[in-house]
């Protein structure tokens, strides 16, 4: 039977409860005696729990880990306000009549609580929210007593008119308020007098362990330091009261007790100085322990550290399937999972131990024994049903593979282990996209699920092949990348023809066997690609990336333009980014939807290897000379850039002679800038048109046409002109007064003086141009770092806001407490990760069903 915590109640701690729970009455500020033993009645009293290994608790007898620690208490000489509740005390003082002790709100005039769904123990709705600001009523509506103005001075002083209210006075007043009155203000967590401490709970040592430094010296926890202060001052106050010391001395000590107790709770109080350690470091109060990123809540309760995990650098290996991960031998030997010995698998367990494939055995009595060369035969002999063998990772084990930042659920997926030599995790480059990984030194983590349920869930829900389609947009997040696309694209071009011999070689390089179509001596690339497709697969109706920007709608004669696959045969079209890449690949999408994830997975594995293999067969290289444009194209681009610069210069002249047309809603200067930017941009784009049309076929061109890397713009920047560099979306204008660099004349508005780079990267930039380029680059870096922070926080907020929404069995979306947010999830119930770019594509599937 598994017990579950079903509820968690929050309330105030009453002195009686403290006294009942406590095992120690703390009376002395001393920690250890001369021999180094903890003093009884001190804050390190051995009855408060154990922190030293080997010792046993004087209260419960448990050792470290068994003994939860026990509470102590300190009798305060004079009561002290609990700083955490100073605001509530203030509100109550304002609202409770000083004479009749009733809450001064006329019946029927109670204000409604802002929080509507508060669940409280008594389930009584708070009529007045103690958290909000309350205006003190002038007279009591019940006994008509005039109220006196209460003021609160931070951190913990109250005045009634001019007179200071001592914690004692406040306590006395609160004691007289009836429970019924308290529910009126939503005070259901206990008695208000408990907000004034009389008994101070001393926490168990287990929550404030001391560390023994080398040399045997003990270093105490911050809380212990604070507790010592509290006890010391409290004792001295008590003694002073006993000897009848003058009032002012008592008040000073009282104030000091108040200060120490306050900073013990919260050491970031406004109005109170920070309590400091001897070294000058600010001490951590209880609140500081809980708060913020590294606090108990966010740092420990929500961010748990785990065992059975590993982390190392990643590197690519296209020979692995996308759902595999190469795990280094050294890691595989360290990571284990429990192997439960039964009558049926004893032999297997024995084999594991004998071959040193297991690290520990756990006997039914819970003893863990390390398997060594010496004791392994003995263990094998004793091994019976009921023992657990902690065996090492093997090929085929399910592990979770993760890369931070984990921005979406595909950042952690289940892979199958392949134990491999060397020291890095290996992965198929096609799964880089969902993890956003590259191999420039990225590290990733592996986690080993330890129970059968966890492994099954991981294998079924988190497996790579079951996460091919992104829930974000209903398209593939896993697909071919870079050379894989280039290769497949070049292979499937109509002109590609391979001899039977080359085709065999190709599949040999790719590393998988394929039955080549019989009787043909020469095979087209399209035929070879078709071998990867299931027999009845069909897709058509989109252009290949090579022809992406074509305007004509009609289907032309070009066998490379439109994709058409019928009965598992590629009839026309080049298979490139549009078919096969992550985020865009329509073929992968359709394959996953129409067949099954395993087929799609296999296709990606094979297509990727085929693509890379074809490049090896064909050869794929680029040289600087590839960026050479034909002479007439070179002059053409140069002319276009010059023309644009001249245009800009003319605009400047017009501006200076005040003939320039002012654009609506802009100043003259702004109009000039906008028009210059336009003129230069269109010049660059004309140059880029020239590059696009005149560039000889080469592998740079092949890459951007296939969509594997680069674009017309980047090619233009390399071959013809870099163009305008901008800061904040405008021409560069910062620098000196009225000029960007000291080399220009003041007021120079020409393109070159404001960030226009007229050279190409191949030609090389002049020093000024390089400056502009670097300035632009720096802006990019700044922007990126700012953006990651902003969007990171946005994600945290979004997740927190939507965290408990889930789709229920009736199709509604509700929050954890059952409130309906949507009556039908997404208004049509469709799960985008089971959709075709957000639709259910019923027409496509209808065809399939009709066939069946």
């Amino acid at each position, binding site marked *: 039977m598994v017990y579950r915590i079903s509820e*968690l109640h929050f309330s105030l701690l009453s002195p009686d409860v403290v006294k009942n729970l406590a095992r120690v009455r703390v009376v002395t500020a001393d920690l250890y005696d001369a021999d180094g033993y903890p003093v009884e009645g001190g804050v390190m009293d051995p009855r408060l729990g154990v922190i030293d290994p080997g010792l046993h608790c004087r209260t419960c007898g448990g050792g470290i880990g068994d003994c939860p620690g026990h509470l102590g208490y300190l009798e305060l000489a004079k009561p002290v306000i609990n700083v955490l509740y100073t605001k509530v005390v203030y509100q109550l003082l304002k609202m409770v009549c000083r004479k009749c002790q009733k809450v001064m709100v006329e019946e029927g005039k109670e204000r409604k609580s802002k929080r509507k769904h508060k669940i409280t123990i008594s389930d009584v709705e708070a009529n007045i929210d103690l958290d909000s600001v309350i205006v003190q009523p002038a007279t009591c509506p019940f006994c008509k007593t005039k109220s006196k103005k209460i003021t609160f001075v931070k951190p913990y002083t109250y005045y009634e008119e001019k007179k200071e209210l001592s914690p004692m006075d406040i306590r006395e007043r609160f004691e007289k308020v009836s429970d019924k009155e308290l529910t009126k203000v939503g005070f259901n967590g206990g008695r208000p007098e408990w907000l004034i401490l009389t008994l101070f709970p001393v926490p168990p040592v287990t929550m404030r362990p001391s560390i023994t430094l080398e040399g045997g010296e003990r270093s105490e926890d911050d809380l212990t330091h604070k507790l010592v202060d509290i006890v010391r001052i409290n004792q001295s106050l008590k003694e002073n009261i006993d000897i009848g010391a003058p009032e002012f001395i008592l008040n000073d000590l009282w104030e000091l007790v108040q200060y120490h107790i306050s900073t013990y709770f919260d050491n970031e109080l406004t109005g109170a100085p920070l309590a400091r350690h001897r070294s000058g470091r600010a001490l951590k109060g209880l609140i500081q322990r809980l708060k913020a990123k590294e606090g108990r*809540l966010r740092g420990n309760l929500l961010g748990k550290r785990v065992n059975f995990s590993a982390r190392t650098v990643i590197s690519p290996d296209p020979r692995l399937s996308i759902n595999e991960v190469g795990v280094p031998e050294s890691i595989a030997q360290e990571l284990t999972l429990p192997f439960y010995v039964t009558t049926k698998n004893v032999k297997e367990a024995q084999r594991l131990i004998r071959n040193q494939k297991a690290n520990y055995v756990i006997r039914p009595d819970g003893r863990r024994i390390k398997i060594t060369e010496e004791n392994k035969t003995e263990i094998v002999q004793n091994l019976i049903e009921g023992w657990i063998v902690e065996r090492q990772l093997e090929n085929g084990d399910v592990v979770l593979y993760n890369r931070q930042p984990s921005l979406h659920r595909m950042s952690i997926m289940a892979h199958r282990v392949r134990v491999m030599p060397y020291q890095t995790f290996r992965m198929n480059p096609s799964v880089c996209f969902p993890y956003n990984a590259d191999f420039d030194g990225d590290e990733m983590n592996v986690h080993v699920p330890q129970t059968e349920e966890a492994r099954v869930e991981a294998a079924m829900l988190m497996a790579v092949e079951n996460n091919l389609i992104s*829930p*974000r947009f209903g398209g593939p997040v896993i697909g071919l990348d870079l050379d894989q696309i280039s290769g497949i694209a070049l292979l499937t071009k109509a002109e590609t023809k391979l001899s039977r011999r080359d085709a065999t070689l190709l599949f040999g390089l790719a590393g998988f066997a394929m039955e080549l179509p019989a009787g043909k001596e020469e095979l087209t690339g399209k035929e070879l690609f078709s071998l990867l497709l299931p027999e009845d697969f069909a897709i058509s109706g989109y252009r290949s990336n090579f022809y992406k920007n074509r305007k004509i709608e009609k289907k032309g004669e070009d066998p490379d333009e439109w994709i058409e696959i019928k009965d598992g045969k590629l009839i026309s079209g080049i298979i490139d980014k549009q078919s096969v890449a992550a985020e865009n690949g329509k073929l992968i999408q359709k394959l996953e939807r129409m067949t099954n994830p395993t087929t799609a997975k296999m296709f990606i594995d094979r297509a990727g290897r085929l693509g890379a293999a074809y490049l090896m067969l064909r050869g794929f290289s680029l040289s600087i000379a590839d960026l050479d444009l034909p002479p007439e194209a070179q002059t053409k681009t140069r002319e276009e850039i010059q023309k644009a610069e001249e245009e800009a210069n003319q605009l400047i002249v017009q501006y200076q002679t005040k003939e320039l047309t002012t654009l609506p809603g802009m100043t003259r200067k702004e109009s000039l800038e906008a028009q210059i930017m336009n003129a230069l941009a269109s010049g660059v784009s004309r140059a880029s048109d020239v590059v696009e049309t005149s560039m000889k076929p080469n592998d740079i061109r092949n890459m951007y046409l296939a969509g594997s890397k680069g674009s017309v713009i980047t090619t233009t920047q390399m071959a013809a002109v870099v163009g305008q560099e901008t800061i904040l979306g405008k021409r560069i204008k910062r620098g000196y007064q009225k000029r960007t660099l000291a080399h220009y004349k003041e007021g120079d508005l020409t393109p070159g003086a404001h960030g226009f780079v007229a050279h190409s990267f191949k030609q090389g930039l002049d020093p000024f141009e390089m400056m502009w380029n670097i300035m632009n680059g720096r802006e990019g870096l700044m922007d990126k770092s700012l*953006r990651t922070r902003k969007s990171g926080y946005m994600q945290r*907020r979004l997740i927190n*806001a939507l965290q408990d929404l889930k*789709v229920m069995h009736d199709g509604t979306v509700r929050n*954890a407490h059952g409130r309906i947010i949507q009556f039908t999830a997404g208004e049509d119930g469709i799960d985008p990760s089971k959709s075709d770019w957000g639709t259910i594509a019923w027409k496509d599937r209808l065809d399939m069903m009709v066939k069946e």
Partner: protein
Amino acid sequence: MYNLPTKIQEEILKYTEENKISEKQQQQIIDAVTKIHKMSTYDPQEPMGVVAAQSISEPATQMTMRTYHFAGTAGIQVTLGLPRVLEIFDARKEPRTPTMTIYIEKSHQTLDRVRKIAENIKEVKLRDLVKSTILDLTELKIKYKLDLERLHALDVDEKKLSRLVNVRNAVAELAGEMLHVIPKKKDITNIHKIKFGVLEAHVKGIKGITQVLVTKEEGEWVINTLGSNLKKVFEIEGVDATRTTSNNIFEILDVLGVEAARNAIIKQTRFTLDEQGLVVDPRYIMLLADMMTTEGNVKAIGRYGISGEKDSVLVRASFEETKKHLTSAAIHGECDLLKGTIENIMVNQVAPVGTGAFDLVGKIPQQLPEEEK
């Protein structure tokens, strides 16, 4: 009876009509599509909220910071990119660049008429009508030389101007083409303040609308504005109130209600994401908008909105303002029912989402078979 979404129903109807399909076959198609639809729906207990949050914020990492964009052909700059998304989710009362798109009814669709409407909407301040200002220190008067041409072009009656320029502590009077402003108190220290105050006086148009731009969009004349005031614009004759919108979500909430505000959140978020070329399924944005508006007003994503009003104490305390939420829970005697994910992770229990929401019930034999004992 299983109901297909309306859109799919319409699609089927269109499809059967186009292909002349018999009623019997149509029913077969409907049955088949119903099956397909069922296969494509959410599994029960799917944590849609988290997926939605991830789907919106993951591409946000790729968004550009400070982008301004020209709405329409040229002219009006609007905040876009990450800052705009944050603005929407924070539910700011006033966007950084409020804009309106004003559609005009068919009967008023002539360029002249639309220009006239645009002109009337644009705020005219006295500053726009003054050629020069003279500060007469001997008489303690401020004299404004009026641009009569502009005055007439904008259809402003100069006689009414003195009444319009109703600045505190000063009286205005017209003297030919001059406008004299006499401070009530003969105090030289204040005269500068008054001088500038008068220039800002609202003369005509709608307050806050600093720019108007008439453009042709999809064959009709549309007015784009910088500055927003839906209530006032709706009162103008010729404005098509059914289509005219603003990018100020709170204004839409005030003028048109929550449903409209919800739609505005969806539309604005989608517009911003689309503009950046990011693809996010609209269903997630709808869920977010629904969450922001379920209680009848627009609530921010964050500490002062949804997150600050979560039912669970632990969820609130773990997000932000730990101290506030824990102390208030103690005072009110709150109780955390541990129904959500975060709460259960905190106490180390299986959270009731996805597979964790189900229990396995096994048939346990009452008595073990003899031999196994």
